[in-house]
């Protein structure tokens, strides 16, 4: 368990994972559940346990749609999406760990793709 990392994630996320009552509603409502290796409730639980590196290495951190369904529907106000984002930021902030490089973008474009998609991708996946 990496204490510093856990503290950093909790501070950055501004979330109290101890409020979780393990109902699993976040994972019940998550539209990206099927794409994730670790699911929203696991993010909360693993952050609580301090097992953050596992999450940082997982592709799951890029699968969250930031749709806040888990945030609004969590009965305990845990806000799992903010936990996911905090872990993702911890990952992409590491040197050379950008998930998306500007050079990769042209290949992904099509003529109708709105700017919004590009700026959000950069914001979410790169530092």
């Amino acid at each position, binding site marked *: 368990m990496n204490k510093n990392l856990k503290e950093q994630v909790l501070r950055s996320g501004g979330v109290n994972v101890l*409020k979780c*009552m*393990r*109902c*699993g*509603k*976040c*994972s*019940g*409502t*998550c539209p990206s*559940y*099927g794409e994730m290796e670790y*699911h929203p*409730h*696991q993010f909360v639980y693993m952050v609580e346990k301090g097992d953050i590196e596992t999450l940082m290495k997982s592709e799951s951190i890029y699968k969250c749609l930031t749709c806040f*369904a888990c945030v609004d*529907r*969590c*009965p*305990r*106000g845990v806000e799992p999406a903010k936990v996911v984002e905090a872990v993702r930021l911890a990952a992409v902030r590491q040197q050379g760990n950008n998930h998306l490089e500007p050079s990769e973008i042209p290949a992904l474009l099509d003529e109708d793709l709105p700017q919004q998609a590009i700026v959000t991708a950069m914001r979410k996946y790169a530092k």
Partner: protein
Amino acid sequence: MQRIGVFVCHCGTNIAATVDVKAVAEALGHEPGVVISQDYQYMCSESGQELVKSAIREQKLTGVVICSCSPRMHENTFRKAAASAGLNPYLVEIANIREQCSWIHKDIATATDKAIILGKAAVAKVHLNTPLSSMESPVVKRALVIGGGIAGIQTALDIAEAGFDVDIVEKQPTIGGKMAQIDKTFPTLDCAACILTPKMVEASQNEHITIHSFSEVADVKGFVGNFTVKIKKKARYVDETKCTGCGLCTEKCPMKKVPNEFNMGLDNRSAVYIPFAQAVPKVATIDPNYCMMLRSGKCGVCSKVCSAGAIDYKQQDTFIEQKYGAIVVATGFNPINLDKYDEFAYNQCPDVVTSLELERLMNAAGPNGGTLLRPSDKSHPHTIVFVQCVGSRCDDEKGKPYCSKICCMYTAKHAMLIREKYPDTEVYVFYIDVRTPGKNFDEFYRRAVEQYNVHYIKGMVGKVTPKSDGKIDVQASDLLANEQLHIDADMVVLAAAIEPDKTARPLATMLTTQMDTNDFFTEAHPKLRPVESATAGIFLSGACQGPKDIPETVAQGSAAAAKAIGLLCKNSITCNPCVAHSDELMCNGCSSCEKVCPYGAITYIDKEFRMPDRTTKVRRVASVNPAVCQGCGACTVACPSGAMDLSGFSNSQIMAEVDAICK
């Protein structure tokens, strides 16, 4: 010369762990007038009390200070002990060094200092205590039960059994409450109506019970033993004394499209209606929101068909006033509104229902005559998903922070009944925890799983998507399998959280009783006085005090009745002697005090005074009726001359405490 005894309690380690009790006893021993200062492990125990008693006798004490837990806990205990040793009980003061010292502080040195100061304040006060003796006030031998559900019915029956008159005030047209809507009861699966309706009939036939149905409490005045309650009897546009309950009017009424609240709006009733066949009183009521006669003056069919001539379109709300010695609150609960939880599609799909709606759907007297059919297309559901904890255990504004307590059991019951009656139906229950503490409860739940093969899944439903083909996509997590499920369901049943009835809050204000932040009534003591409110003479019955199932409700109803009977048995009760009194020599007769007295306890008399020059002078002075005064002290501050003072909390006593604390 005062001879004061100080007794410092360790409360095991509750006090002694953070307060140096020996140091407290030592320090207080040096206070003026203190002749004995001791510490002891458990002052409230038999031997602890004996210590106090023998000190009173041997040291001829004139005052006692106990440094212990809150006076709300044991003030009475020590007052009684003092009285039995021959000391006036009001010469005892408590210094609260547990709840307000040892339990909130960690540092022994500062906690001990504070305990000493609290002790000194109590010693300073007890110096000025005077012996007080209680007045007696008569008890009206009649009880009021507010709410006519199973809790209220049970309480009323028990009080009546003891020979006292009791009135039930019920806001609906019939008594019966939620239990009347329930189909079967757990864990025995006996029919709710079969056990409830005989009690309803018994209540209506008992000579000691008066039922005010379709009525509300409008105002409460007075105090324990002597409440005056104003009851509003709402206009039902039917003369209760004439209506025979034949039901002809309800058959003939042309307005048939009124959502039937007894069936949770799952079918319709007529504008003139009797809620259900076993209603008590079995009297029709006209719904003014739908009755065409009352709305537009055109119709009058019910009046024409009523051979008893009971229909009265001109009926008005009436008020009656009655005196009571005791009041029992039994206002019950309701499921919460589910508008904020539409991820479960309750507002979008008629086949997503609450558990109480399912009760009606399964009930023989319900909209489908007891056959479980989907509300949308009246087809048999083959896959049913139950969702637990909808709005319970929530830490947000939408839901309730508490566990609603009854849902795990009634869901097991529903699941089991469905599997019993329709074995081809698959039943899924999504749970967070299954909570079944209770006699034969866990066994009951296990039967649902083991014998009836109900699929219990640890996880929560996250999204319900109704589809045009009538199927309902239920997306949920299965935490143990670590997967997200999609179930093609025919019906979804939501275990909505329960909340106190909305009428409880204004009622609590009228009764001057306390509620918690969830609007449940607060009991006088969470463990030792569970059916009394902190306000004397007001008792609590059923779910108005907290979520409860039927056996618990009935038990509490009977317990509240026992407490009420205990009060009604007395011819008089001892009044609190800590009441206001006016010093006639100082009173100006200005009427300020009278204006702030909530009880009307102050009157004015013209009194003759002998003047120094031997003449006499007649002056208007205040006089307090000690049986009516409740001792709030509002008058003492309103009085400009300081003539009005409060026994037990006198100006000089409070200032002595102030001085001791500020020293």
